[in-house]
């Protein structure tokens, strides 16, 4: 564990150096990332400007949902998404060979190698709006709620990580499915909407989407004291099982990895 922390510290440094090297790219990405966050808020504010509730969620709750989604997406895209974009390329080009030869865990290598600091900007944007809203609406939240919210957000991050990892692992066997990360970018976007919205779809689709709908909704419910015990069990159950399944699936898929031209 200590060795992995040391490697990760080194990776943080290396990735920071590349940020300094490609400054204009960093500025571009940061601007884009900020614009994405701002337009998300403007969108939800406009959509809910004439209604008091949508699927039983009050307007301010929906905006908090968007703010929390912005924070989580900021962390996720900074730490993981570029790595997941890399997996299909590694499998397709045969470069995964090199990673498998490293004397460290292959899941660690493919998941944590690249860090994109440009997405960091979304975190203060999300937190700022969250605090602004709570101040504006005079909603008092305790430190206990904030800590619980952060903890649940980390668990949500784990679920999102597992979903992306499970999906991109498919490309180890089906190398032609190179656009899986692009699809995931859109599909995980549904996490910012109330779960009740997806109840309108068939039960099969709803069950399929259920893990995604838990990622943000559950931590936000902590802030509004609306979380039930069954929802807590479901949330942690999904996180633990997805963590286990994604690990097993990675190990299983590697057995079928044939490399390129070998």
């Amino acid at each position, binding site marked *: 564990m200590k060795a992995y922390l040391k490697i990760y510290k080194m990776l943080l440094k290396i990735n920071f150096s590349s940020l300094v090297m490609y400054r204009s790219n960093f500025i571009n990405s940061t601007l884009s990332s900020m614009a994405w966050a701002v337009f998300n808020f403007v969108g939800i504010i406009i959509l809910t400007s004439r209604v008091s509730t949508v699927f039983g969620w009050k307007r301010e709750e929906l905006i908090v949902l968007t703010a929390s989604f912005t924070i989580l997406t900021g962390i996720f895209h900074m730490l993981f998404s570029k790595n997941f974009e890399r997996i299909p390329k590694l499998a397709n080009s045969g470069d995964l060979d090199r990673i498998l030869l490293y004397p460290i865990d292959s899941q660690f290598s493919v998941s944590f190698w690249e860090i994109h600091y440009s997405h960091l900007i979304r975190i203060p944007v999300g937190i700022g709006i969250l605090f602004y809203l709570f101040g504006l609406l005079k909603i008092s939240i305790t430190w206990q709620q904030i800590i619980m919210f952060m903890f649940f957000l980390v668990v949500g991050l784990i679920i999102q990580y597992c979903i992306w990892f499970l999906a991109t692992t498919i490309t180890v066997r089906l190398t*032609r499915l190179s656009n899986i990360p692009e699809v995931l970018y*859109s599909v995980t976007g549904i996490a910012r909407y109330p779960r009740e919205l997806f109840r309108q779809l068939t039960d099969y689709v709803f069950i399929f989407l259920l893990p995604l709908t838990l990622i943000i909704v559950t931590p936000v419910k902590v802030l509004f004291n609306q979380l039930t015990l069954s929802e807590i069990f479901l949330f942690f159950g999904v996180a633990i099982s997805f963590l286990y399944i994604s690990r097993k699936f990675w190990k299983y898929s590697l057995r079928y990895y044939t490399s390129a031209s070998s």
Partner: protein
Amino acid sequence: MKKYFQIIKGTWAEYMVYRLSFVLWRVRIVMQLLVTYFLWWAIFSQHETLFGYTQSMMLTYILLSAVVRPFVMGTRTQEVGMMINDGSLSNYLTRPINLFRLFWSRDIADKSLNIIFAIGEIAILILLLKPSIILQANITVLLFTFLALVIGVVLFFYFSMLLSLLGFWTSEIWGPRFLSFILVEFFGGMLFPLDILPESLFRVSTLLPFSYFIYFPLKVYLGQLSVISMISGLGVGLVWALGLKLLTELLWRRGLMVYSSEGK
């Protein structure tokens, strides 16, 4: 002409090789559409009319945007930027082929395939969800809608090409493209009709060319514009299209002067 038809056929064949990827792409689009659809459906379940739209008008707008989007914005021109950056553009410059026509052909292939799927998907969704949608029967309005769509297609082609041509001067073309994608998503009217925006934002959106991608053609289709507004809208769109065409061609000529493909 024959060679460009071969390019269309070749692009279709390319998509068929990556069938599963294409299907996955469509799944993504349907998911996005369903989320927007149900969001608006829920919002309208509490009101008869909102922002000057009835539920059927809004749901028609959302469903048809799924067809208009691939028609107007289905493009392969983003590849030009990558071709400039990795030097593979040289392969095309030495061939007896016009790069703009080549990409028009590729776009036609992309648009046609995506539209076929989009129409199929919308038909299934209409059968399943049974929304009350507006079927426009006025020939004049349909003609104006068609013209608005054509202008949108031309405008988007040159807009996307323009972004790619930045590759002549910088290797970092991803940032401007992503930023423009966010602006287009918002000011193009993909999530909602632009006239529901606050007055000041709506005014800004009408000054930009993005409103001609989705909003203007659908607004014309819904029959919410007078003949004068439709004609003036088409006129402004045409000016934008012409302006962007001239600017793109200018950038192309200037870009070729500074283009170098080391090691190619």
